[in-house]
């Protein structure tokens, strides 16, 4: 492993100034690497009231009643990790690296260490992250929850997550990323590598709740084997000063599936550049990207790039955006790339304000204009698009409703 690490470090050092193709270029030297450590807590209920409140807002249940395991990291410290189900492993990635020699088969295998300055920074200043794994055939009864929390002012949080669903297993993860209520500025760098083995299924629901001037650069890669399914749901309804991400899904196995759903609202001062890229590399592979974006004054770009490399694949993209304020910007940038003839790829995109006919239709039923608008927006943000099990759907619905009150 050490030979590999040396090599990775060299590549990272060479990429430390490499700009990302999208998003504002962030000067990482203005942030500090965190030094403070926090004590481990056995029970999430013993966290401070203010911390608990922030966790709840991003879907983390501190009572952990309907959860098969939890992982909480504050800055660099793993505050808590547990799994309540046999065959489900939850720990920090540092611990996993020490425990399993085979970690090098996964380490930086779905994301390139020298992709850009942010991946390089994570390699050079890594502070843990989560390792979650389901053993072959194991299905999580309840979702696992993970939270990465920025507690100190002006820091970079550099996490590296590894998620492995072994053959035939089923894993549901709900993850919330947030900051302490007093944190004004900071940057979250998160590398996540997913490995979905033959016939396995992973749903990954991420709720972000950042503060004023926080920048966020997730870097994600997903490798999906035969009959594997990856379902991503992303929700961001609070202001994030600058967020850019463009996860790559590699559908390497026959009949593999990837679906990306996102619900993003950008208030004034928010700049979000998101989307997904899917490489369809085996017959029967299917990918879908669905985004619903709303601007109340900020800028949101929703991208999608779907690449059909072999015959017999299907890809579909749907980007719908609503502009609710005079100077909000919503951009949809769908790209379809068929590299052979026998592919089925399509997209729909629509950007604009709420249709007048719809508002008036509801007004004819006695709703005021404002009531009509918020009803239509609630429908627009309907989480049913995500195809989740009911208890997860309810948790997310609640998060969306709370978030919606904030921007309407």
């Amino acid at each position, binding site marked *: 492993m050490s030979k590999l690490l040396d090599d990775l470090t060299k590549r990272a050092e060479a990429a430390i100034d490499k700009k990302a193709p999208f998003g504002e270029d962030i000067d990482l030297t203005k942030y500090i690497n965190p030094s403070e450590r926090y004590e481990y807590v056995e029970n999430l209920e013993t966290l401070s009231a203010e911390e608990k409140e922030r966790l709840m807002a991003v879907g983390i249940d501190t009572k952990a009643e309907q959860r098969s395991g939890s992982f909480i990291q504050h800055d660099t410290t793993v505050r808590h990790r547990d799994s309540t189900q046999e065959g489900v492993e939850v720990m920090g990635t540092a611990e996993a690296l020490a425990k399993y020699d085979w970690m090098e088969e996964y380490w930086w295998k779905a994301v390139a260490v020298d992709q850009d300055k942010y991946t390089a920074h994570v390699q050079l200043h890594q502070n843990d992250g989560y390792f979650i794994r389901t053993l072959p055939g194991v299905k999580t009864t309840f979702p696992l929850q993970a939270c990465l929390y920025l507690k100190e002012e002006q820091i970079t949080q550099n996490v590296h997550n590894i998620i492995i669903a072994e053959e035939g297993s089923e894993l549901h993860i709900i993850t919330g990323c947030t900051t302490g209520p007093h944190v004004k500025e900071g940057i979250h760098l998160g590398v996540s590598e997913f490995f979905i083995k033959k016939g396995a299924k992973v749903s990954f629901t991420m709720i972000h709740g950042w503060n004023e001037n926080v920048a966020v650069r997730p870097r994600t890669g997903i490798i999906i084997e035969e009959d594997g399914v990856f379902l991503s749901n992303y929700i961001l309804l609070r202001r994030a000063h600058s967020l850019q991400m463009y996860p790559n899904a590699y559908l390497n196995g026959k009949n593999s599936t990837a679906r990306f759903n996102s619900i993003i609202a950008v208030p004034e001062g928010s700049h979000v550049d998101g989307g997904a890229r899917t490489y369809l590399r085996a017959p029967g592979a299917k990918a879908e990207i669905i985004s619903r974006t709303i601007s109340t004054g900020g800028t949101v770009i929703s991208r999608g790039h779907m690449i059909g490399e072999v015959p017999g694949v299907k890809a579909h993209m749907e980007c719908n955006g609503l502009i609710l304020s005079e100077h909000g910007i919503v951009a949809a940038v769908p790209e379809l790339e068929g590299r052979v003839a026998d592919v089925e790829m399509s997209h729909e995109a629509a950007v604009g304000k709420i249709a007048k006919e719809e508002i008036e239709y509801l*007004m004819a039923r*006695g*709703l005021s204009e404002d009531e009509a608008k918020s009803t239509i927006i609630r429908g627009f943000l309907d989480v049913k698009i995500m195809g989740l099990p009911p208890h997860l759907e309810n948790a997310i619905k609640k998060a969306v409703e709370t978030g919606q009150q904030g921007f309407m």
Partner: protein
Amino acid sequence: MLELTDLRVEVSGKEILNGVNLTIDTAQTHILFGPNGAGKTTLLMSIMGFPEYKVTGGQIRFNEEDVTHLPLHERARLGIGMSFQRPPTIKGLKTRQIIELSGHGGADIDEIAGEVNLGYLLDRDVNDGFSGGEIKRSEMAQLIAQQPSFVLLDEPESGVDLENISLLGGAINKLLQKDMKRQRVNSCLIITHTGYILDYVEADVGHILLGGRISCSGNPREMLGHIKESGYEECAICPSC
């Protein structure tokens, strides 16, 4: 209950109605006939208060109150309700929810759905991919929940199969309190081409809209007979108008 005097309306800068006079009393049901493009839908939309239908002259009075310039939703709250010829689709909003909203939380959704055979559509998005007949039944369900005292129906039976017309007829009669003789207060203005609805709903007065105004009024069944026989062209030269 409703009184239109010399009502003039333009849409997209074009005058469609040029002096409509019409009075509908409490507990009355009126029928509106007229060829395609005559302005029937325009008249209903103007009474309902859609801003695109600009009233350039005349007056709309509802229950003695001048509502000519009252916003749409306030007219709805005063008790005017309408079923639309071509309502929009609203993605993400369920049919169940729009019926609930129409009834301001007080309606028994499943019972209403049963009345107009809509149960299987409750969990679909509003009007999304609905057939012609399904749209009509969904409109009717919303109205039943809303309980307006003055009902505007734009071709409620067109595109509806015979079995469902009888169902809709029943629903309209209930909406119009047809079973209550003396206490009845609700009134209605119905647009129809075929007149099928007259087989189910008892109507008091018929009108023909032609050339931007009401050209003729009378017994609705007799009028329908005339129209069927000689069309609207005869109507234009009819000496009684």
